[in-house]
């Protein structure tokens, strides 16, 4: 439970009113179970609109304001309007002696959040304060979320820029060396960097297409076993280079409602990872099984595995585990974030079982939608 203290100011020329509010609120706690937050109040009072505005000018401001409509000098409505002119956004509850619609309407137009009609009971006061408090807490959270979203996007773009510029910097460096010493052996490295960059761009396009939801999806009856076979064939050369055996086991046919290119992306990333991060002469086993209400896909390898402490961040964008075992293995760092997005599109779940040096197994469980027939 998070404890939050909000400052509440009451502007009212009747001392009895101020005292009353203070008494009701001093031990008052509002508990928001759903938000995990408990709020308490630090209350201060002012006798006039002028006194309040002076305090505002000095740079102080409350989180919540209880403002009497009828004040000597500037009345509540005037104070509200002046606050608006200064662009002071304070959640305000107007206290009105005459609960007329006109007053409520003018106050609301000027930005008041709620109003309390005099005479009001302690319960009514607490109710109004609770509503206003919820407004404040929710607005703060929305703002924090926006800020976090912006920060995440910002970091993504920064890392992306770095990932795109690095291969170009390397290529430029090699070109410089070749100009000076044309015999230098660096063409293989240059090829590798070019391929890496192309893969990064392709993965990036896939990822953003899925994220933006702008890719049109063709959900048809697809045989996931056939798609797996197709992907394995595409990866045959890479597998052969490492002496890796890749097998598709389980059902011989398994039809599910899916977009073929999404299945290809999903299986493509999982299978190419299983081959890439494997040991020489190792194995990759793709298994598809149809169970009541679900289709279970697993891709297991006898490769270098993933340590427990690295597993949490594995599906993040550009997450690359850099250690002695992964040294020399190229990748965009986007494959698994693409996998996790596609898993999300199907309302499926993905589970990873792995330990350093003992291989990895990724298990995806697709919920089956009822057959149309």
């Amino acid at each position, binding site marked *: 439970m998070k404890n939050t203290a909000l400052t509440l100011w009451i502007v009212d020329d009747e001392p009895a009113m101020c005292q009353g509010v203070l008494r009701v609120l001093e031990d008052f706690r509002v508990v928001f179970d759903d938000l995990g937050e408990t709020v308490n109040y630090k209350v201060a009072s002012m006798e006039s609109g002028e006194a309040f505005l002076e305090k505002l000018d000095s740079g102080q401001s409350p989180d919540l304001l209880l403002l009497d409509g009828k004040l000597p000098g500037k009345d509540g409505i005037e104070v509200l309007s002046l606050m608006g002119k200064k662009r002071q956004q304070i959640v305000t509850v107007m206290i009105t002696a005459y609960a007329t619609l006109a007053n409520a309407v003018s106050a609301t137009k000027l930005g008041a959040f709620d109003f309390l009609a005099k005479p009001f009971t302690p319960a009514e006061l607490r109710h109004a304060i609770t509503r206003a408090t919820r407004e404040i807490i929710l607005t703060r959270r929305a703002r924090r979320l926006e800020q976090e979203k912006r920060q995440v996007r910002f970091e993504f773009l*920064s890392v992306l820029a770095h990932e795109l510029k690095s291969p170009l910097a390397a290529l430029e*460096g090699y070109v410089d*060396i070749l100009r000076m010493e044309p015999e230098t052996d660096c063409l293989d490295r240059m090829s590798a960097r070019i391929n890496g960059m192309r893969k990064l761009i392709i993965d990036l396009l896939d990822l953003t297409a899925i994220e933006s939801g702008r890719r049109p999806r063709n959900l048809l009856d697809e045989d996931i076993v056939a798609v797996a076979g197709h992907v394995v064939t595409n990866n045959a050369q890479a597998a052969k280079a490492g002496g890796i055996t890749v097998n598709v086991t389980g059902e011989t046919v398994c039809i599910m409602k899916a977009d073929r290119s999404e299945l290809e992306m999903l299986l493509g990333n999982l299978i190419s990872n299983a081959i890439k991060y494997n040991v020489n002469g190792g194995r990759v086993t793709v298994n598809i099984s149809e169970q009541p209400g679900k289709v279970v896909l697993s891709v297991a390898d006898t490769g270098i595995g993933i340590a427990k402490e690295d597993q949490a961040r594995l599906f993040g964008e550009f997450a690359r585990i850099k250690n002695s075992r992964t040294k020399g293995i190229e990748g965009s760092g986007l494959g698994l974030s693409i996998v996790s997005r596609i898993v999300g599109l199907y309302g499926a779940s993905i589970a990873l079982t792995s330990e350093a040096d003992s291989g990895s197994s990724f298990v995806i469980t697709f919920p089956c939608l009822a057959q149309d027939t």
Partner: protein
Amino acid sequence: MEKKMVLVVDDDADMRKLMEVALQATYRVISASSGKECILAVAKEKPACIVMDVMMDGITDGLETAKLLKEEKMTKDIPIIMLTSVNESYDYRSQIDANFFPHDTWLDKPVKPARLLMEVAARIG
């Protein structure tokens, strides 16, 4: 006279190779591929100069490592040249107190071999 040692830190294997080639005629070059490896290498042998990529393992790995080195008595006098991909969206320079880390220690990637050699020589001869 024995060659001074320069520690080159970058997570990109090709960049490490290229910097080694640029500097190896004049200096003895040791390389590291992350902030962590950099600290280990410095503990093993104190370099005369460090050339370090700002972004390695995580968005500010290089920066944080440089700060650590500047705070340690044993290592704070080692000149550090920071390499950055000119990137307006993440302004590293605003993250640092100018006195702590003077502006002229930044080089924008890609760095021409001759320029890198010149910058290192300007700091350690």
